[in-house]
C-alpha cells in the first residue's frame, strides 16, 4: 500500500491515478495509522509553500513524518511542492521553515536571461547527474513536465541527482537515502514519468 499524504492541496488524484495505472494500491490520507502502515509515502503538491507546511502542521503530520521517514526510514517521494517541502525553508510569501530533510533552501527562480519567463512551465530536458534508481531506464536529457516559480538550491553532490536549466541550473531531483524528490511532475510526464514512478514504487 502506498500512502499519498493528504495535505489538502491539489493534485492528489492525479498522483493516485498514476499509481493505480502502474498496478499499485494507494490511499490518499492524513490518518496517522494509515500512513504508518503504508509501505511507501508520496508527498505530492500543487500549492504554496506556507500553506503546505501549515496544513501538514494542522493535521499533526510533521512529527509523524519525521518518525516514519527519518527514524523508520520509510521511502518517501516528494513531488513539486512536496519536493520543495523536503528542503530547509522557502522564500515563497515570506520565509517558511520546511521539513528540513534536504539541506537546501527554496528560492525564487530568477533566470539570468530576462526573456525567459517565470513561472517555468512546460517540458524541459533533465540532466541525470548521479546514479539513482529513480532514473533506471530513463535516458539522460529526458523531458519532464515542470510548473514552478521557486527552485531548490543545490543540496550538494550526491544529493542532487538531476538538474534542469532555465536561465541557470537548478535541482530537478534529489535522493538522500530513503528520501526522494522531483521538482517536475512524474505523474504528468507521460512515459518517462510513469517509469520514474514505477522505479520508486518497485525499487526504492
Amino acid at each position: 500500500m502506498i500512502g499519498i499524504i493528504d495535505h489538502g492541496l491539489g493534485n492528489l488524484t492525479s498522483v493516485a491515478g498514476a499509481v493505480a495505472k502502474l498496478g499499485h494500491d494507494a490511499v490518499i490520507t492524513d490518518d496517522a495509522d494509515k500512513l504508518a502502515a503504508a509501505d511507501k509515502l508520496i508527498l505530492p503538491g500543487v500549492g504554496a509553500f506556507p500553506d503546505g507546511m501549515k496544513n501538514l502542521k494542522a493535521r499533526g503530520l510533521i512529527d509523524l513524518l519525521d518518525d516514519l521517514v527519518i527514524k523508520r526510514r520509510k521511502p518517501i517521494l516528494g513531488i513539486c511542492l512536496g519536493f520543495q517541502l523536503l528542503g530547509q525553508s522557502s522564500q515563497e510569501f515570506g520565509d517558511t521553515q520546511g521539513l528540513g530533510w534536504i539541506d537546501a533552501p527554496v528560492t525564487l527562480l530568477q533566470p539570468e536571461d530576462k526573456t525567459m519567463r517565470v513561472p517555468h512551465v512546460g517540458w524541459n530536458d533533465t540532466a541525470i547527474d548521479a546514479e539513482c534508481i529513480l532514473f533506471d531506464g530513463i535516458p539522460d536529457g529526458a523531458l519532464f513536465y515542470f510548473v514552478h516559480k521557486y527552485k531548490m538550491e543545490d543540496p550538494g553532490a550526491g544529493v542532487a541527482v538531476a538538474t534542469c536549466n532555465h536561465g541557470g541550473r537548478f535541482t530537478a531531483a534529489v535522493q538522500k537515502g530513503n528520501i526522494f524528490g522531483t521538482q517536475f511532475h512524474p505523474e504528468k510526464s507521460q512515459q518517462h514519468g510513469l517509469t520514474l514512478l514505477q522505479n520508486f514504487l518497485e525499487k526504492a
Partner: protein
Amino acid sequence: MLRKRLVTVLTFNKGTLFRTKLFEPDYRYTHNFVDSWSVDEIVMLDVTRDVNADKAAFFKVVTQFAKECFVPLAVGGGIRSMDDVRTMMAAGGDKVVINSGAVEHPEFITEIANAYGSQCVVLSIDAKKSDAVDGGYEVVSHFARNGTGKSPADWAREGEELGAGEVLITSVERDGSLQGYDIPLCKLVSDAVTVPVLGLAGAGNWKHFVEGVTDGGLSAVCTQNIYHFTETSVASAKKFMEKKGIPVRL
C-alpha cells in the same frame, strides 16, 4: 531548453464536449477523443451558459478524464469562489483557468495564488477589436457579452501583479475561424508580461502555430479544432514546428 507547448482546449456544455465558433456552440464536431499522448497539456473549460445548469456534469467529466490523463490539466469555466477552485483541483486539475471571475473580483487571482501558488492560476482573457481602447483591443467577459473598457495588455499586467502564473489570450473574432491567431493581440499581451502566455483561437494549419510562437511571442499555442486532436496530426504539427526551428517535445 524549455519546449514550446501545443495545448488542446476542450470546451464542454453541460458535460458534453463541443467546439465553438465566434463564441457560439458549434455541434458539428463532437468526437469524444483526444490524443492525450502527443499533446503537451490539456485545458478543459465548462462553457455552459445556463447559470442554473448542474455543475456536477462537468465535474464528473473532469474527474473521469483526469484519471487517465498523464499530461497537465488546466480546468476552468464558471470559477467564482475558492470552493469552486478546491472542487476543480480535487477533480484532478493541476491549474485553474479564471476569466469573468477575475474581471468581477481581481483580488480572486491573489486569493488562489496564495493558496495554490502562482503557477496554478491561469488568467484567461477574451479580447475583441475596439477603437475605443488603447492598443485597439478591449477585454470582454461573461462569454464576450460584457465590455470592460480595459486593454488586454493592461489587464494581463495587472493579473501578473496580482499573482497569475500564466495568461491565456483568446481572440473572440478568430474563434473557430481557422484564419490564424490574432498575432498583434498575442504580441501585445506577451510583451506586457513576464509570465508565459498561451494563445487561443484561429489556428487552422501548422504554420499558424509557428507564427504564434515566432511572431506572437507565445509560450504555448492552443487549438480547439478537432482536426488537431488526432494522433497523427498533433505529432505532425510538432514535427513541422521543429523543422521551422521551434523547440518542441516530439
